[in-house]
């Protein structure tokens, strides 16, 4: 029986189909043309398998793939050409690596015969991507396509997820092959799901049972492990208050009684101070980022640390663990819950309340319900959060917009937040929001951006226009790179070195792209404007004129102790 031979490009189509890919974010170019030619057939007519979203810059393709992955839990796909197309994806690859986001980037490459000759648009992509990706591989021949694609998707989504880069030389795209599907779900050198150690579980249980003041730190690992229910079961049985990291915000609903707020530099006051008082700290799928711990020399020294993580290299990396439970938290949490005693920590939980109340009076109320002066970011976020449906997804850019948005948005459902936590990539917001609208078409996607980040991937307005992607863009314009400006004011003698920005007319830009736009300058008009934005089908830009020197508070200055968190700028002088 003679099999029909197909090209490597068509093999790629079949391999992507076999992985369940439905949406591809991409940008064509010379070295990926055979794939785009095959894609033509697979995006229409009887062979239609994919929607291809033409982005306006390859960086946008990677962030869109990240947004898509974050809200769906599936692997996001970016398809680009070689050389600059490939290097433009690197920021997104690094971003996905730090934030454990499963994406696969497929990039064209010059034919293998031309490799190493400095051919037109040749870049050693595998070489440059290796340190910032989970796996990078060059598919040198068409016969490797099925195996490499399946392996790439398996590696991207399994264990601790991350980005995979496939470099696809042009000869392999055009070579003919007898296509045979491959399904990789085992790589002998890669232990995606470590075996749960019952001894570690027993030690964790003993510490938890004997603790008087336990505190849980919930990270994105809970979302990635799809273990929101297991987390709730654990917390509720043990009666343990829980702080969430920025990426873990929707792992536990905002209104859950055991939620005590966000951790970290601009998180909530109570959990930051209580990290220094608890006797047992239970870190669940989080990596003790410096933005969470502040000064490691003083961080939670009084506490026994239990660290639940799927990635063994996270154990003892920043904070020494007394007990390490290396496994998927979907497995480790129920194992611990089954063995612990029913906990009663009301007095300890109640001790968070005065701190929360202090923060509410000194920071939150003035931020979300100001009585006078220009608009503040906190009140804009709060207005959107109050009006948005419960299933809304928060997407943020990076900077003050991100810190205010993550602080004041409300999270009711899992997978409700897309933000660049690790790499802190300005320009992430708009393309990630596009990806989120394709991943979760039935949910409202609210994307908060500052005037700096809005302009960093502003070209993606073209994608939003063409796709009519229903991104609700909230542009909080203070004519400053606000977060850097805040640090300059606080730590650099108020020398505002190149943080003030001249802005274009966003009204005219919106008009140029045919996107509905409204400017909000007065407090009185805010709620109605938000309502109009949310009621409008399709994309929308709401530009808010924000107080120029609005500061994000509270704040633990970088490198300081978490219990030195300041509720006001004046605290710094103390």
């Amino acid at each position: 029986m003679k099999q029909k031979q197909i090209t490597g490009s068509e093999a790629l189509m079949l391999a992507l189909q076999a992985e369940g890919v439905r949406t591809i974010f991409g940008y064509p170019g010379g070295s990926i043309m055979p794939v785009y030619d095959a894609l033509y057939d697979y995006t229409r007519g009887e062979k239609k398998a994919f929607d291809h979203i033409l982005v306006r810059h390859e960086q946008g393709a990677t962030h869109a793939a990240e947004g898509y992955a974050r809200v769906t839990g599936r692997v996001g796909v970016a398809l680009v050409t070689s050389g600059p197309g490939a290097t433009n994806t690197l920021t997104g690859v690094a971003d996905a690596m730090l934030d454990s986001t499963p994406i696969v980037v497929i990039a064209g490459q010059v034919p293998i015969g031309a490799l190493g000759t400095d051919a037109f648009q040749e870049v050693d992509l595998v070489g440059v991507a290796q340190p910032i990706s989970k796996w990078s591989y060059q598919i040198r021949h068409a016969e490797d396509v099925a195996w490499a694609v399946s392996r790439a998707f398996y590696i991207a989504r399994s264990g601790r997820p991350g980005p995979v880069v496939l470099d696809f030389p042009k000869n392999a795209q055009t070579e003919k092959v007898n296509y045979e599907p491959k399904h990789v779900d085992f790589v002998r050198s890669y232990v995606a799901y470590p075996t749960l150690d019952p001894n570690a579980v027993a030690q964790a249980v003993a510490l938890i049972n004997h603790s008087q003041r336990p505190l849980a730190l919930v990270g994105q690992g809970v979302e990635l492990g799809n273990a929101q229910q297991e987390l709730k079961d654990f917390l509720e049985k043990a009666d343990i208050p829980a702080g969430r990291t920025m990426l873990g915000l929707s792992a536990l609903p905002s209104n859950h009684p055991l939620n005590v707020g966000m951790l970290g530099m601009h998180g909530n006051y109570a959990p930051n101070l209580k990290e220094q008082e608890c006797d047992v700290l239970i870190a669940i799928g989080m990596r003790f980022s410096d933005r969470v711990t502040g000064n490691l020399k003083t961080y939670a020294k009084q506490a026994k640390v239990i660290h639940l993580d799927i990635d063994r290299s996270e154990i003892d990396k920043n904070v020494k663990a007394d007990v390490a439970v290396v496994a998927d938290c979907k497995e480790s949490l129920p194992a611990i819950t089954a063995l612990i005693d029913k906990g009663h920590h009301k007095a300890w939980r109640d001790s968070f309340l005065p701190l929360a109340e202090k923060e509410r009076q000194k920071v939150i109320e003035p931020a979300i319900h100001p009585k006078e002066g220009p608009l503040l970011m906190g009140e804009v976020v709060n207005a959107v959060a109050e009006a948005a449906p419960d299933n809304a997804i928060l997407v943020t850019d990076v900077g003050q917009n991100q810190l205010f948005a993550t602080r004041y948005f409300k999270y009711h459902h899992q997978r409700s937040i897309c933000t660049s936590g690790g790499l802190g990539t300005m320009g992430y917001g708009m393309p990630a929001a596009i990806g989120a609208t394709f991943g979760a078409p039935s949910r409202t996607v609210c994307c908060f951006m500052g005037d700096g980040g809005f302009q960093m991937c502003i070209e993606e307005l073209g994608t939003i226009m063409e796709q009519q992607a229903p991104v609700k863009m909230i542009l909080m314009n203070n004519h400053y790179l606000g977060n850097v400006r805040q640090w300059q004011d606080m730590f650099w003698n108020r020398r505002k070195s190149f943080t003030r920005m001249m802005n274009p007319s966003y009204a005219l830009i919106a008009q140029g792209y045919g996107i509905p736009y409204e400017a909000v300058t007065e407090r009185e008009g805010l709620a109605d404007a938000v309502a109009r934005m949310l009621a409008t089908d399709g994309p929308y830009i709401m530009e808010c004129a924000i107080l120029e020197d609005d500061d994000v508070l509270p704040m633990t200055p970088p490198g300081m102790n978490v219990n030195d968190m300041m509720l006001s700028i004046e605290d710094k002088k103390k």
Partner: protein
Amino acid sequence: MENKKLYTLLVYSENIAGILNQITAVFTRRQVNIESLNVSASSIPGVHKYTITAWSDEDQIVKITRQIEKKIDVVKANYFTDDQLFIRESGLYKLSTPIVLENPEVSRTIRRHDASIIEVNPTYSIVMKYGVTDDIISLYHALDEFGCVLQYTRSGRIAVTRGMQEEVSKFLEQREKRLTD
């Protein structure tokens, strides 16, 4: 940094292009210099063995080892101190034959250090020594006293563990078993 010791990492990987780059990048990222490096096929078909030495403290070498083992195609990575390993390396010394002939102390030194002369011609002689690092260096210093050394080089360290079974074989057995279960 006073607690720095010379650690030996034994790393086993699949035979896929670019692994060496990934391993060394873990050192580079932390600005740790690799003292010596040897790559060869291992006793397991398709698996390569890397023997790497570096000065480090234990805290750092643990992190480096885990980051290396985290690479998808790295099968296993472990770190050892010298007492846990049987270690050998070799040194090659190219000496000036006229000086060697002139001064009989040179030959006596070579014999005393248990090294062998493997080639002699009128201009130069080649001496080789197997042993541990210190012995090879000590012969170099002794020969250098005579002013006869034209060239000198030392190989990377090779090492086997003093434990009974190669841990990596056990690991692979367990992995393959899980696949077939």
